[in-house]
């Protein structure tokens, strides 16, 4: 990747690590009851997430889904307010009102994750429309899963973005399952192939564990968008290592052991660490990075722990901009 500096490469690894460690911690906290409700981790999908977000500029927009922590972390959101949000603290990035499913950090262009599968895709489309109308050069990316790829609103959005040549990327995180349902049993055709019928490139990144392969595909799409040539559909094939959500226990027969072992043997973070070492980065530096990231996650938890829960009355703020008429 000629356009990535060695610093960039390190930053890519750091962001993947942040996602991994943040999600590992969140998983534990759910199981111990420190995080209410549930969370959906991106563990195993870090290359797909960071390869995508890193191909965007700082000011670019994105929307996401229930597998929600990786996206803002990948886009550079600080961990403390994210963790506090998961716990439901007043210092959470959404003041404790969103929770894991609804993280949003407008300061990094994160316009919101969505608990409703497919529902945030047109939000990113609208952000791309703003960019086009205001001519501000921003690109918008919508993350969605293989399951969401069967929601009609995706195709309405693709058609709209194609017709209006919006600067937009449709990023399908194909981890091959929607909850217990194997994608191939409910998907007719190939997701990436759906681009063509909607007048846009449909790119399939078969090795979604290779962060640079993902980056390259998304960067191409982003360049195309910024050049005014319209949207792209990018499908990244990947795998989630954990259960659909933390704490959920399903009959195990929907994913088999060999399949899991195969994907575990291609851990995106290990792969990229090896790649960095091959290109001359020292193991010590990478070990230090690992330690730093762990410390960051510790600090995020400490920040959350030290934060108060929101006041009762906070529940009655922020519905409308003019408070006096709220409820």
């Amino acid at each position: 990747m000629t356009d990535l500096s060695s610093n960039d490469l390190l930053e890519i690894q750091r962001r993947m690590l942040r996602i991994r460690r943040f999600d590992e911690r969140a998983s534990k906290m759910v199981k111990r009851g420190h995080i209410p409700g549930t969370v959906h981790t991106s563990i195993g999908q870090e290359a797909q997430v960071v390869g995508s977000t890193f191909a965007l500029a700082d000011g670019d927009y994105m929307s996401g889904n229930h597998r929600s922590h990786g996206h803002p972390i990948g886009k550079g959101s600080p961990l403390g307010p994210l963790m506090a949000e998961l716990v439901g603290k007043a210092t959470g990035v959404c003041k404790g009102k969103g929770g894991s499913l609804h993280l949003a950090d407008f300061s990094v262009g994160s316009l919101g994750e969505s608990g409703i599968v497919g529902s945030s895709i047109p939000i990113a489309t609208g952000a791309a429309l703003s960019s086009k109308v205001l001519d501000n050069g921003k690109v918008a990316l919508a993350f969605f899963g293989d399951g969401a790829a069967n929601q009609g609103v995706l195709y309405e959005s693709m058609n709209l973005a194609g017709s209006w040549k919006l600067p937009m990327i449709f990023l399908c995180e194909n981890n091959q399952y929607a909850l217990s349902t194997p994608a191939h049993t409910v998907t007719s055709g190939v997701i990436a192939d759906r681009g063509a019928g909607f007048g846009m490139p449909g790119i399939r990144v078969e090795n979604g564990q290779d962060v640079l392969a993902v980056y390259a595909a998304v960067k191409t799409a982003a360049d195309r968008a910024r050049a005014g040539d319209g949207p792209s559909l990018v499908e990244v094939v990947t795998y989630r290592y954990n259960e659909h959500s933390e704490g959920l226990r399903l009959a195990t027969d929907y994913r088999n052991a060999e399949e899991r072992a195969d994907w575990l043997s291609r851990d995106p973070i290990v792969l990229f660490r090896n790649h960095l070492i091959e290109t001359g980065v020292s193991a010590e530096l990478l070990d230090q990075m690992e330690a730093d990231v762990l410390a960051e996650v510790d600090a995020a938890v400490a920040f959350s722990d030290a934060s108060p829960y929101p006041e009762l009355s906070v529940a009655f703020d922020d519905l409308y901009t003019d408070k006096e008429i709220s409820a």
Partner: protein
Amino acid sequence: MTVMSYLGAIGAAQREAMDADERVIIIGEDVEANVYGTTGGGKSRSSEGDFTQRYGKNRIRNTPISEEGIVGAAAGAAMTGLRPIVDLSYSSFLYMAMDQFVNQVAKNRYMFGGQASMPVVFRSAMFYGLNTGAHHSDRPYPMFMNVPGLKIIAPSSPSDAKGLLRSAIDSDDPVLSFEACLLWGTKEEVSDEPFWVPLGVARTVREGTDVTLVAISGSVPEAILAAADLEAEGISVEIIDPRTLVPLDRNAILRSVAKTGRLVVAEPAHRTCGAAAEISALVAEEAFDSLLAPIVRVTAPDMQIPFSPSLEKQMYPTRETIGAALRLVTGATGVARAALKLAN
């Protein structure tokens, strides 16, 4: 002042708002060709008032038929610096975008702890009473009233149409505007100057002392006729048009009922869980001690709308059914009760 139709007043408000603020854009099916009459001077592309001529295709955006995508895109655009007006043509098409209305438009600001604001207006026309059958005739505003986070207007006169729409466009919150096709042609003198009718303030259409009649949207003209009939019978009716359904001007209604002690609510929506139910429940809770008679709702029955003109005409509140309700609560008569039975 100019004599404006209801539809013309909407066009005027849109033009004013687009002139005043570059961030205002119009999105919708067939808006470029001014099919629904609010984005042009006349019906011709070349006419002077044509919005596409005036503002260009960057701001007048003709869309595919993709309501869900359009509503969501408008929400995303509103969250990132634009102030879209979305023309959804008929209210019956809003269901296609229900997820976007409820889960994105209404919730985002709240869920994100105030990070988002959502300055967007969704306009649609309730096309009832015109023999178009069940698909086009819906009056679905009550279901949106059950969704916190939306504001809802339902203007019943050209002036209100203009002034409320300006306020809606200037609001930083999402506003749904339900317009009644039966009112499209209504005309009155309306100021050519910009003006704003505040959201959440009812209009007292007519003062009275014996009974309060809250009337909504297309029921307002029928209410006025009924009140005139009752006046001839010596009964003084106070008509209140809430104009904004969310936020509702509760005080205006409660004050009036405190004065009259009697309440009839007329609206064209279906009965169960309608706006009339809400207003009745509000009064039964907050003004119970003033009440001298049962609260009567005059609404569309819980029935879909038949096509045949011979069938459809009996489906909505009329001068007669409203009159019957007024007579009932101000001194019940057997005739009035029979007339109401027929209607509900």
